[in-house]
């Protein structure tokens, strides 16, 4: 059949380019492998030429694939599944990139692109290490290319082709609309499904590329380690790999924290870190990479810890692959909010892990004995000893987190069980990691005051004394005056939190002092101290903001006369009636009005005034509601926040009154009997029961009074269920009607007379537009979160400073012709 209006060419071009990328990377791998093992200079040169050309063709193809996908999405070619599933006409063009990241194929593509960039740099900078290092990277490119290949090998499908047409999708086979040649003119096909609202955020445009650069860069230290084992030049690579390790740790750290910032700002996940399996999967390779960084530094300075360095780099890269498996295999389906739904790529993902891990470990263990090591033990007063201990703690913390993250899904899969995370999963992590924070904080503080090999006791004690005392005083002040009220998990955990506060303050103070006393204020040499200082600030920010996070919109149940039973814990949402000043913890809050804007009028902003009870400081926040894209009735909200230097106030709307236009506010009378139904515009109601002086009523009844209550169940068209209990109240001879309202349906229901003879009751129903405009919202105060962001920036800067210095050192070590001449003369 000839379909009308389809643009087939971009897809064919794109698919050709993915195959080209696959073939070129395969040739590059083989050619680089041959280069590495070549015996003669001529052989090396010719293989290397081929390998470089192949790798460059691969890079070209990968970039072209990306541009093709971008073209398809940005020109709204909805015949393609990628565009139809992940974008829509209404989408802000700024988020087009986010559409690409949203799909599995797109994130694999991003990863591949970064490998290309890193590979091109290494090709010209790695010198004699180019061939073995690039063999590893080219091979990784082959594996990643299979993920977007979408070819069938026998019955097994290899990867997902990002250039599938909607009608070519397996599930779409025999879908009736594709029997029409003009299917593209059907409204459903003329616009896409749109991008998930949560991803329509500027963090989602920039955070995935940075995070994936972090993931991709872990391959470089790994490739150097493999190159060392392979060429049996066990020690020659360590100086060249150090700047790359710093780069990888810095960028991956930055990417993780950008993800945390996104989670924090969207507030949907309840803060910057929730120990979600997907978050953990990115943290764990970073921890091991940082462990490897420290042992690498130790080796370069002292000759110790080389074996551990090899192991850490292998495992760090493996954990990146493992996290890919966890997040994409669907195995986390029930335990993560971020994970992808299951697909048929499991076998391919498991193979990806095995194909790197098994040969690496065989190579490592078979050459283990040959890797140089120093038999003599490190002194307890040496820097290398404590750095190794620190690396070990990082590594074990990573293993524990990995275990906690992946034990239940994998165990369930293998053993057919149904275990799940503990009741309070965050606390299960926190109660362990708080001690890791204590150990790391203290090691970070004292580490640099120790010298390599050995430190005279007196010198160490003298130098570390002042920062220790200062840190003790400062942390005591924070503990005593900082209002640390984290009592939720008992005194033991609270004590650990205080201890961790000391450790982090110690890390900050000791490293700040060391920059001046140890480094004489030469920042450009003090990368390590700067990074450690930033790390200390991050720890402190995490501890204080988590421990002191305050719920402002505390609903203590005073406003809940209708709830079937009240609950001990204060609940999270508070309702603000329009124009009514409401008590909200430290603030007075007033809901002023709302305003719809946006291209399609699909965003509603709520204006909410705040006034600080103590300081009188006034500000206005505008949280919003976004009507979901096409074909979806739902809404999702964006919070708004007020940033202070020492705290953030966050507000997000959870529900609001509807806008109806029919303000013909008239009561209608209905004469009904028990179990009769009354219809209104938005649904119907049933008179369930009428009772006299019922027990447990909210009205105060004297013995002489009579209260007749109608119990009415209201069913709205959107299948919501409400209860209304209007009443007639006789106080002596006075009678009055107590109307009840169903705010959400803009209903007012009255019960106005009883006919004893016919057992009929008169009900009055009024529908009015926006009877009581209100918003229900959540509000939080996060204190000192800025310490975390500031710490992140400082830590990444520290990595950058270290990277620059180590890069200069590594370059100056390279034997150039100039230095050779100088050596000859001397």
């Amino acid at each position, binding site marked *: 059949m000839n379909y009308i209006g389809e643009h087939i060419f971009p897809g064919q071009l794109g698919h050709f380019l993915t195959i080209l990328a696959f073939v070129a990377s395969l040739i590059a791998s083989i050619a680089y492998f041959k280069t590495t093992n070549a015996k003669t200079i001529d052989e090396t040169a010719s293989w290397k030429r081929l390998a470089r050309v192949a790798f460059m063709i691969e890079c070209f193809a990968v970039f072209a694939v990306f541009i093709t996908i971008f073209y398809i999405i940005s020109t709204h070619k909805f015949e393609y599944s990628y565009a139809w*599933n992940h974008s829509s006409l209404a989408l802000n063009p700024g988020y087009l990139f986010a559409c690409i990241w949203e799909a599995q194929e797109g994130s694999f593509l991003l990863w591949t692109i970064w490998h290309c960039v890193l590979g091109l740099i290494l090709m010209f900078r790695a010198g004699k290490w180019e061939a073995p290092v690039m063999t590893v990277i080219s091979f990784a490119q082959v594996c990643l290319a299979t993920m977007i290949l979408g070819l069938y090998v026998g019955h097994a499908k290899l990867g997902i082709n990002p250039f599938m047409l909607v009608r070519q999708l397996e599930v779409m086979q025999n879908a009736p609309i594709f029997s029409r040649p003009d299917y593209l003119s059907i409204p459903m096909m003329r616009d896409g499904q749109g991008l998930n609202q949560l991803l329509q955020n500027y963090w989602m445009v920039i955070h995935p590329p940075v995070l994936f650069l972090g993931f991709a860069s872990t391959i470089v230290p790994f490739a150097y380690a493999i190159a060392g084992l392979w060429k049996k030049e066990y020690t020659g690579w360590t100086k060249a790999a150090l700047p790359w390790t710093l780069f990888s740790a810095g960028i991956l750290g930055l990417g993780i924290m950008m993800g945390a910032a996104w989670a924090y700002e969207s507030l949907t996940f309840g803060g910057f870190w929730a120990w979600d399996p997907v978050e953990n999967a990115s943290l764990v390779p970073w921890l091991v990479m940082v462990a490897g960084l420290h042992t690498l530094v130790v080796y370069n300075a002292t000759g110790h810890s080389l074996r551990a360095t090899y192991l850490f780099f292998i495992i760090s890269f493996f954990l990146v692959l493992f996290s890919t498996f966890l997040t994409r295999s669907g195995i986390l389906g029930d335990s993560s909010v971020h994970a992808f739904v299951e697909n048929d790529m499991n076998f391919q993902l498991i193979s990806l892990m095995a194909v790197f891990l098994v040969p690496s470990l065989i190579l490592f263990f078979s050459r283990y004995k040959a890797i140089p090591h120093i038999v003599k033990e490190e002194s307890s007063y040496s820097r290398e000893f404590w750095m190794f201990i620190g690396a070990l703690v990082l590594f074990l913390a990573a293993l524990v987190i990995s275990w906690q993250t992946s034990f239940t899904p994998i165990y369930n899969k293998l053993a057919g069980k149904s275990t799940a995370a503990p009741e309070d999963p965050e606390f299960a992590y926190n109660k362990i990691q708080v001690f890791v924070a204590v150990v790391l904080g203290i090691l970070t503080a004292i580490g640099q005051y120790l010298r390599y090999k050995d430190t005279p006791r007196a010198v160490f004690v003298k130098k570390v004394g002042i920062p220790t005392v200062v840190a003790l005083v400062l942390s005591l002040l924070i503990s005593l005056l900082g209002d640390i009220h984290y009592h939720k998990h008992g005194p033991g955990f609270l004590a650990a939190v205080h201890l961790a506060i000391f450790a982090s303050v110690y890390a900050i103070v000791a490293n700040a002092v060391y920059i001046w006393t140890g480094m004489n204020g030469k920042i450009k040499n003090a990368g390590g101290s700067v990074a450690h200082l930033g790390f200390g600030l991050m720890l402190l920010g995490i501890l204080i903001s988590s421990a002191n996070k305050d719920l402002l919109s505390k609903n203590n149940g005073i406003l809940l006369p*209708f709830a079937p039973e009240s609950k001990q814990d204060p609940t999270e949402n508070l309702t603000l009636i329009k124009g009514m000043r409401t008590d909200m913890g430290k603030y007075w809050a007033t809901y002023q009005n709302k305003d719809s804007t946006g291209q399609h009028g699909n965003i509603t902003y709520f204006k909410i005034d705040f006034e600080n009870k103590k300081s009188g400081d006034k500000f206005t926040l505008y949280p919003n509601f976004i009507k979901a894209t096409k074909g979806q009735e739902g809404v999702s909200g964006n919070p708004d926040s007020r940033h202070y230097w020492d705290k953030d106030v966050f507000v997000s709307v959870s529900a609001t009154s509807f806008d109806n236009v029919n303000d013909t506010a008239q009561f209608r009378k209905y004469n009904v009997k028990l179990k009769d139904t009354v219809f209104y515009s938005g649904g119907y109601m049933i008179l369930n029961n009428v009772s006299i002086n019922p027990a447990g009523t909210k009205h105060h009844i004297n013995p002489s009074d009579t209260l007749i209550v109608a119990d009415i169940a209201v069913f709205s068209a959107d299948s919501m269920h409400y209860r209304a209990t209007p009443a007639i109240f006789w106080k002596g001879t006075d009678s009055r009607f107590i109307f009840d309202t169903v705010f959400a349906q803009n209903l007012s229901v009255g019960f106005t007379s009883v006919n004893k003879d016919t057992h009929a009751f008169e009900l009055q129903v009024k529908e009015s537009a926006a009877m009581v405009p209100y918003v229900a919202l959540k509000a939080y105060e996060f204190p000192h979160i800025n310490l975390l962001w500031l710490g992140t920036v400082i830590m990444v800067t520290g990595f950058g400073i270290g990277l620059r210095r180590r890069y200069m050192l590594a370059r100056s070590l390279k034997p150039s012709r100039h230095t050779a001449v100088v050596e000859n003369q001397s």
Partner: protein
Amino acid sequence: MKKTHIVILIFIAAAIAVLVSFTGNLTTYETVASARQKEGKFVRLIAKVDKTRPIEYDPAKDPNYMSFTAIDTLGNTTKVIFRNSKPPDFEKSERLVLNGKMQNGLFECKDMLMKCPSKYKDDPNVMKKNLTITD
């Protein structure tokens, strides 16, 4: 024995102790029937919204009270009380993981994880449904 080895052994022992205690704290995924048998125990109930029964939520009266009926794959149902605001797109969710306890025949839900078609577009069934409804 080198002191590094001693430190490593201590750490590994600590790590194992931690992991064993973690395994002891694990909860389980349950169906309605099996959750009823474990009344009062914290479980994770896998179910979906029974759309034939009403969802009760009136934020003007109480923004922290929502109730609905959940139905599991075996067809068993239970009323669920969730003391929080109705999550966005709740009606559209295809699958729920409800974390809480069965108490007096009601499921007291502490928090929930929703799987929505909009969030998980890679789910083929949803995609097919979206297209076939239209024609």
